[in-house]
């Protein structure tokens, strides 16, 4: 009986018993959930980038449920645009599920956990379908899925959300790509389009773009004979389905528009990322570099830190596995059996698919090593976007699944391999025993190895020796389930140890719904938390956004802040800034022009001693008020609380409304970052808004009773964003319905 036929028979056995099939499919997932139960139930909170992701998602959904699409974040770093909408997959329809859960009474953290797990499962399912399309076998695809579930790809989601944001749409893109070029059906094109839309709004799409580029190059090299026909078929399909093709292109353009708008506004230099760009510079050099508004990074910045070599050591794939820290996002881990299979299958035959997967893995691996190889420098010099991203270790998000896929392909070849002679069989036996002995020796010599690693190797040796003794014709497919059981021994112990290490932290984070409340004064000192996770990342970046509360005006550790605030903190010192910006409103009688670096001493004096004069960027358009209204040597008025003369009557994250009643005109400075998209309306009429005192918003308020409305109105308004959110949801529903309809037919 041929191998494919046997596999079909095995599956028919399960199909006749759906209960067993369900258990088989969900058993690895149930086991995974059991091992990570402390994370899922919220006893161990998410860390590092996932915590940052949770913060942004909580801020986003909390504000949406408050009836506001958040575009500005007034709580931290003295105000900055809420950029996460376009960078962190806020358009993902799954987030709607999270919003529904929160509305239904589930707290934010558990709703987020459910979202993470469902998203991860979608990725695992995508990997299963991709493996099935490549391997042409459900059984081996199931093995690939289970190995994926028990690799660093899933254990890393609690510290590195990029795994999901980059991998999940990426794997589905490749699945639909393969299906589309096999069958040229509209629904697969829609699938590809939707995946591309998600990639365009998920963090940074450059890693995926690199993978796709490498795939196209390798495919063209290995399957060059097929290319003309594929192109011809593709052109034929496009000509027949013009409307669909145009719709898909438009859909990708719509999805990419927020990111493009963000990049365009970013290139104007209103926001800077000192913490991102200055790892290898002195504060002064960093300041000059950042203020020059050069968004591109040097080669050293992109390649020296964040490489895979920095985040993982070859030996740590096998040793010290019980010492994996929850405070690093370097969970590069694959079950031991993956390496064993790759090693013992060295005698199996090659085909183009295997070569393609193997070469792609090698190229990605070499790029991810950064400065340690000339490959990443080559890409840096010849591919323009390599200057705009770092953290090359993110390529491991693709390397791990590719290695799993390659090992399962090798396993399939091994199982199907027919020995030509008794001599070859003996040679193969020697190879298997030799490889296993080599692994055991390595582990014994280096020590600090988990018991399950030895158990895996011994059981694997028994399995493969028995398999070889019986011969491939005597092989039963359910043996593979046994091999899978052996394969999962080690990851189970690794995950158990990981969860145990992480459980040492006792942390709490805001989980409940918050309503924004305005305060006239910012706190001077940050709330302190004994939680260990804040030793690694600034507490300020997380807590206050989650709680929708004002943070102290500290900018230490800021990754994105307004250029003005960065300028102030560097030139006048953080202490002066902290003292000045703890109050949100100052009322001045005088204004004067501020000429940048020349006036820095004067600005420091004004802020430190609270002089009654506001300094405004550039002299143009400033109407100087009558000096008789007050003495510039006197102090400016500080608003500590609301009164009949000054009161904030309405506040949300994008806007605030103030009522005033002054005897004389006053120049009001609101110590929230200035941005050109902020507008001020006094009694319904737009007034001039200036960048005052180096970084803040300032404008003249006439005498008498006034209603002032300050609002953030970028070109990409909340309504456009809401349209895009609905567009994503609508696209997904349409796509699911078209697949469902086809399946029914």
């Amino acid at each position: 009986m041929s191998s494919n036929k046997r596999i079909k028979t095995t599956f028919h056995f399960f199909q006749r018993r759906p209960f067993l099939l369900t258990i088989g499919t969900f058993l690895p997932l149930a086991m995974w959930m059991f091992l990570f139960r402390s994370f899922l139930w919220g006893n161990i909170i998410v860390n590092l980038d996932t915590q940052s992701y949770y913060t942004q998602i909580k801020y986003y959904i909390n504000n949406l449920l408050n009836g506001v699409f958040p575009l500005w974040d007034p709580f931290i770093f003295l105000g900055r645009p809420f950029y996460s909408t376009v960078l962190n997959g806020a358009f993902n329809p799954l987030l709607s599920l999270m919003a529904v859960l929160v509305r239904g009474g589930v707290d934010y953290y558990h709703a987020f956990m459910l979202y993470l797990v469902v998203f991860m499962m979608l990725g695992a399912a995508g990997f299963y379908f991709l493996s099935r399309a490549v391997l042409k076998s459900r059984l081996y695809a199931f093995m690939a899925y289970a190995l994926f579930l028990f690799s660093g790809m899933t254990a890393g989601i609690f510290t590195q959300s990029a795994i999901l944001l980059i991998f999940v749409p990426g794997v589905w893109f490749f699945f639909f790509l393969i299906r589309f070029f096999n069958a040229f059906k509209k629904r697969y094109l829609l699938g590809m389009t939707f995946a591309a839309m998600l990639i365009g709004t998920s963090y940074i799409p450059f890693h995926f773009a690199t993978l796709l580029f490498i795939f196209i190059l390798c495919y063209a090299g290995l399957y060059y004979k097929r290319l003309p026909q594929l192109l011809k078929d593709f052109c034929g399909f496009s000509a027949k389905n013009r409307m669909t093709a145009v719709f898909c292109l438009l859909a990708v353009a719509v999805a990419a528009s927020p990111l493009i708008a963000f990049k365009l506004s970013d290139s104007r230099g209103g926001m800077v990322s000192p913490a991102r760009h200055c790892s290898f510079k002195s504060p002064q050099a960093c300041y000059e570099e950042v203020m020059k508004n050069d968004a591109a990074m040097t080669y050293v910045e992109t390649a020296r830190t964040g490489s895979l070599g920095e985040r993982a050591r070859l030996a740590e794939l096998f040793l010290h596995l019980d010492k994996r820290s929850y405070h690093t996002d370097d969970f590069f881990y694959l079950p031991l059996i993956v390496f064993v299979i790759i090693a013992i299958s060295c005698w199996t035959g090659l085909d183009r698919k295997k070569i393609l997967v193997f070469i792609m893995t090698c190229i990605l691996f070499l790029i991810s090593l950064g400065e340690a190889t000339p490959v990443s420098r080559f890409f840096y010099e010849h591919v323009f976007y390599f200057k705009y991203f770092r953290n090359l270790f993110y390529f491991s998000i693709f390397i791990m699944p590719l290695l799993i896929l390659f090992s399962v392909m090798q396993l399939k070849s091994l199982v199907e391999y027919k020995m030509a002679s008794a001599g070859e069989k003996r040679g193969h036996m020697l190879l298997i025993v030799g490889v296993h002995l080599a692994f055991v020796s390595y582990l014994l010599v280096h020590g600090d190895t988990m018991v399950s690693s030895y158990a895996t190797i011994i059981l694997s040796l028994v399995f493969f020796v028995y398999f070889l003794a019986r011969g491939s014709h005597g092989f039963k497919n359910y043996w593979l389930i046994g091999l899978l059981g052996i394969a999962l021994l080690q990851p189970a112990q690794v995950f158990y140890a990981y969860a145990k290490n992480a459980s040492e932290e006792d942390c709490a984070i805001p989980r409940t719904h918050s309503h924004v409340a305005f305060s006239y004064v910012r706190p001077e000192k940050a709330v302190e938390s004994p939680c260990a996770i804040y030793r690694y990342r600034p507490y300020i970046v997380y807590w206050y956004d989650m709680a929708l509360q004002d943070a102290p005006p500290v900018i230490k550790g800021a990754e994105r802040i307004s250029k003005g605030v960065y300028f102030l903190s560097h030139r006048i010192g953080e202490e002066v800034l902290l003292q000045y910006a703890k109050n949100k409103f100052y009322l001045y009688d005088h204004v004067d022009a501020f000429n940048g670096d020349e006036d820095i001493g004067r600005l420091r004096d004004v802020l430190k001693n609270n002089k009654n004069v506001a300094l405004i960027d550039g002299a143009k358009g400033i109407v100087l008020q009558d000096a008789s209204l007050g003495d510039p040597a006197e102090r400016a008025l500080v608003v500590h609380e609301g009164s009949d003369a000054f009161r904030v009557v309405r506040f949300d994250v994008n806007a605030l409304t103030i009522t005033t009643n002054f005897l004389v005109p006053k120049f009001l400075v609101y110590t929230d970052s200035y941005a050109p998209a902020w507008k001020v309306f006094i009694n319904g009429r737009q007034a001039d808004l200036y960048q005052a005192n180096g970084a803040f918003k300032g404008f003249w308020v006439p005498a008498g009773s006034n209603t002032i409305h300050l609002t953030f109105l970028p070109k990409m308004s909340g309504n456009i964003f809401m349209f895009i959110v609905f567009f994503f949801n609508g696209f997904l529903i349409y796509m699911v319905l078209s697949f469902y309809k086809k399946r029914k037919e």
Partner: protein
Amino acid sequence: MQQRLWQRSILLYCLAAALFLGVIDGKVIRQQRATYLAGMVAKSAEGREKDRIGVLFYSAMAQLFPRQAGPYVNLALCYYRLGQKQKAVSLYHKAIKMGADPNKIIIK
């Protein structure tokens, strides 16, 4: 059908190994790893977490400076604190053989 050597996976493995040996600078990787872990050790609080990261850090250092006893002494100390005493003793012996002063180790 009998497959030839160039049709087998081992050829791919050998080519990849040759490529990696040719282009990867192992010293740079080890230095990057050690620098990263040093930062982690510095940030972590005293206790088991510091010792666990310490094991990773001093293992990387031992690989970077294989003839120096210092990393082995510290590695042994981390293992000792983590309760893996047998491993700690064997590392102490190794460090002493490499020239570490046994009195100082005992004091530590």
